[in-house]
């Protein structure tokens, strides 16, 4: 999940330490519907997966993002 934390830190311009926490969308200043698009593209490219529309819309916290990516990698 280190690679995922790197993506979170880069996309939302936060420190690596912040990226390890379980922050929610309202808690992250740089996270809105536009940066959410960048996040999804970065995750899909890094892990070579294609997320479903519902999963994308549910990824509203770092923990939800980690769980979702894990689900795809385990599948």
């Amino acid at each position: 999940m280190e690679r995922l934390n790197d993506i979170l830190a880069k996309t939302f311009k936060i420190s690596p330490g912040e990226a390890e926490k379980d922050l929610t969308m309202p808690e992250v200043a740089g996270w809105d519907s536009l940066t959410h698009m960048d996040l999804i593209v970065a995750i899909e490219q890094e892990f070579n997966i294609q997320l479903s529309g519902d999963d994308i819309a549910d990824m509203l916290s770092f923990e939800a993002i980690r769980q979702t990516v894990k689900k795809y990698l385990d599948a």
Partner: protein
Amino acid sequence: MKLDGARAIVTGAGAGFGRALTLKLLSAGVKVAAVDMDETKLAELAAEAPDVSTFVCNVADNDQVEKTVADVFSAFNGLEILVNNAGIMKNAPLINLLQRPDRKHSLELWHQVVSVNQNSVFYMSRAVADKMVGARSKGVIVNISSISARGNIGQTAYSATKAAVEAMTKVWAKELGSFGIRAVAVAPGFIDTAGTAAAIEEKMLQRWVDQTPLRRTGRIDEIIATIMFAIENDFINGEVLSVNGGLVL
């Protein structure tokens, strides 16, 4: 243009730039028709400035615009200045991955923004220009655009309407110039108004401020000074005057 004794229409005069501009024009001796759809705001304006003439009108409705322009011309017996200022700022990305079930930009929002920001400028300007040309009177149309005309992320509809406003300004500068009617656009960046506070999230606004060389939002008086310059300088025509602290260079 000599301001003392001139006659003006200001749309969206109930708040923000429109209100401040109305007060400024009145203080310079201009007769002002303050147009807004919000009757309460117009009443508040009239309480502060008894010399103002107020007209309740939804500028996105052509029938209301035609009636208002006719009423203003009969009340003022002519007009030299039109400031198309009324506008709404609404934000939405073209595709919102967080929105269910339909991720696409709302059609309703698109039509609303186009009606208020773009159609209104067309309706008002054609009605006023027709009367100015008919009376062979010189004048100026000032359209309020926005830095967004260059394409702000998350503002498809708003950006499109402001780019349209700038295009119409240039067309009218060419078409009406021979009648002595000028057209000028003023394109503010991020300015401290209630409209900005309502439309832009604070964290988004902070990001814009961080990217602005002057590291601050603009003030209403800085926009009003630019609109006054556009009105008064009789050789400026077809230009878009950008006032954005250097955010776009």
